[in-house]
């Protein structure tokens, strides 16, 4: 919906501040990653609602680059929508997205956001990487391209395909899927950005274009079932694409494969593990159990929870394109560093993730915190791969 469709709702925000907290008002800190970092009211969900109303509805403020910087600092983690006590809570993130669409129309997006969008349009990924390099992560593996008749399309996404840290997860999941015996394949150079972040950044036209392009490829290849590495891809494909494809996040598929005995994890993996819920799997799609069911099924894994967990999970700071735009920035108060410290406080030696974006954000934070000797970031697929017979 466009911003004008929310004109009777935007001014209803009281700025009461429930949106900044977890459901239990955790003393560890505010759960809005943006407010947690900047600590000025303008960077809170309520502050953003008031600024959107003042600048893009009422005309009291001229839309500016600083406004754009504020609006694009949001990671779209949905904590605000979840914690807001009012009936319009579901609309908060949608209003922000609609406001960003206006900023795109007014050509007021931060330069780095413009670069992200241009890169996706020109190259099909935000990194300006060549399409043919989208195969590189699978080099020297037996993971093959999707062929007609394969049961699953393994949709890897931009981050898993190109980011060197996250490629480990892409390969591990491919390896696990090979061991399961499921017929599957990936698209490689034919894969195009799923558009989740493009949608979150307010470039509706480009998102529609990407959706169409991907859908056309899926149809050409006769794809019926898709398993995604990234919760971001999962969110886009499951909720914003045509419903003719059955879409799974990989943790859901692996959980079922373990339960049905198609994956045997009896080799085990001895570690004290804490798990970080990705926003686009948890708060967006209400999947909190599958990753935990996998971890607890692995002999030797001791699962310990962080203070902020499941629906109260604290965003890594990478959503809404921030993994690339870095508008939230670094420093000890950056969400990813706060989250790594929180994980470290559990006494775990593995911080398990189920998202390539979280993986790259938290890996960087781990180095910045100097905790590499005490804690390792591993994707659940890596943990599982090590546990398989």
């Amino acid at each position, binding site marked *: 919906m466009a911003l004008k469709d929310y004109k009777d709702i935007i001014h209803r925000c009281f700025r*009461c501040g429930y949106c900044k907290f977890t459901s239990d008002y955790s003393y560890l800190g505010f759960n809005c990653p943006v407010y947690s970092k900047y600590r000025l009211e303008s960077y809170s969900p309520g502050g953003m609602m008031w600024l959107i109303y003042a600048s893009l509805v009422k005309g009291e403020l001229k839309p500016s680059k600083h406004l754009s910087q504020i609006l694009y600092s949001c990671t779209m983690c949905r904590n605000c929508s979840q914690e807001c006590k009012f009936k319009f809570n579901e609309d908060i993130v949608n209003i922000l997205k609609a406001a960003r669409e206006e900023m795109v129309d007014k050509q007021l997006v931060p330069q780095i956001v413009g670069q992200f969008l241009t890169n996706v349009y020109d190259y099909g990924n935000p990194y300006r990487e060549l399409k043919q390099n989208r195969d590189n992560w699978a080099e020297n593996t037996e993971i093959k391209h999707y062929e007609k008749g394969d049961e699953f399309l393994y949709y890897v996404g931009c981050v898993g395909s190109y980011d060197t840290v996250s490629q480990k997860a892409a390969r591990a999941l491919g390896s696990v899927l090979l061991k399961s015996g499921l017929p599957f394949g990936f698209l490689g150079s034919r894969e195009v950005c799923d558009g989740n972040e493009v949608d979150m950044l307010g470039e509706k036209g480009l998102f529609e274009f990407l959706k169409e392009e991907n859908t056309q490829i899926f149809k050409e290849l006769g794809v019926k079932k898709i398993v995604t590495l990234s919760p971001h891809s999962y969110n886009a494909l499951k909720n914003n694409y045509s419903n003719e494809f059955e879409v799974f996040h990989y943790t859901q598929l692996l959980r079922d494969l373990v339960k049905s005995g198609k994956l045997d994890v009896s080799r085990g993996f001895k570690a004290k593990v804490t798990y970080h819920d990705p926003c686009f799997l948890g708060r967006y799609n209400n999947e909190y159990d599958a990753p935990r069911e996998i971890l607890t099924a692995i002999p030797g894994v001791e699962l310990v929870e962080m203070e902020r967990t499941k629906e109260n999970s604290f965003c890594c700071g990478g959503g809404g394109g921030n993994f690339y735009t870095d508008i939230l920035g670094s420093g000890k108060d950056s969400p990813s560093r706060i989250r790594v410290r929180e994980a470290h406080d559990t006494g775990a030696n593995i911080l398990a993730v189920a998202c390539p974006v979280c993986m790259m954000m938290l890996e960087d934070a781990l180095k910045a915190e100097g905790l590499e000797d005490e804690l390792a970031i591993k994707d659940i697929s890596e943990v599982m791969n090590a546990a398989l017979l």
Partner: protein
Amino acid sequence: MDIYSPLVDIVGEDFTSNHEEELYIYSRDSGAQQPRKADYVVAPKTVEEVQQIVKLANKEKIPITPMGGGLTLSGLAVPIKGGIVLDMKRMDRIIEVNEKSRYVILEAGVTQGALQSHLEKNYPHLEHSMPDAPPMATIVGNVVIQGHGHLSVAQGINSQMVNGMEVVLPTGEVCKLGSCSISPYWFTRDPLPDLMGLFLGWLGTTGIITKVSLQLFPKPKFRDLLTFTSADLDLLPDFIFDITQLNLMDNLFIISQEWPPWAQGILYVPIISAQDEEEFKLKIELHKKLLRKYEGKITLVEGRHAERMREARLPVPPVTLGVMAADAKQGGGFEYTGGILPIEKVPEASSKAVEIAHKYGQPYLLGYQLLTGGHSMMCGLAYCLNRADGEDIEKVRKALDESNKLILDIGGVLWKAEALAQRLMVQRMDPNTVKLMKRVRKALDPNAIMNPGNWSD
């Protein structure tokens, strides 16, 4: 003089702003008061930074308005004469909990929610008196405005629960008050000259509180509420007297509102708690037994309505009902006259408040809070407003003005009064009291930089 750069030197660029966007947000709140523009917004992290800001402001004679959660609704953290808004919420350390002497030392930016969560996790047998406000309200903001909490009937208002404080004076010196001024322990404010009175209720016009020691209380194992209803407002003073003679409640809400329809009539909601089940049941029974005296006039509500009240009012802080009521106009604005009254004046105030609400086309919305064992009552004459409708806001301003005058005319005082309402009080105040207040402020704040415009200076 432009002090942006010196402010950046003190707190850093990330926490200093003179951008229009920040100034817009810090120049207004969710109440009906006119926006008033700030010139700078600064969020300090340490008491030393606060000191440097105060010294800079003194040198340049620039006003400072301290801000906690910014949730007074009456614009008390919105600067009247421009200058710096000092957002204190980065000073958010819970420094120490003294379990045996039951107090917590914390910085000025600690929110009600954070303290509640900290105690639940680490000291589940202790609690603090939590106001009805959203959890974003700060502990210090609440005591500065002499707010109340969910233990205010049993234990007094929250400013009375302050054992000690650290203050940055308007001239930049740091000062400790209470036992902490002579001891490492922040355990009592007596028996010493009560200098904390120089900062509580002064709405940030006499200094900046940077730390407080707040009393904690035993958290009960059993806690419930009863809902009584009555159509006869005139019974209220006698009933309040009788129920407080029992001396067994933690808290007492009284609600009278037109919307939602199921909540109509006068609802009395005593909150009752105990550590022991037998004691708890007895307390409940004694409250029910009280109704015999008022047979047919005040009755126990049971079933679905009682459950709804339980859902709305038993959580600390209460959520549902307040949120429903504040959003009645779907307009994102809300303000109320907080009239503190002698108990016997409540029926008169209430009848006239209904007239004022109807005169301005508002459904009446009256929320009462018994204070300090039944010595007074806070009557909230509340008005929802539509921020998108200028005429509606103006109507609410007029209704608030009439409500303020009503409370004062019948002998009450106004709680967390907006600047105009403060003026109404000062006009009626003993002239020598006004002079004394001015002398105190002049002595503490020679350059009149602290939240000027408040208390009718």
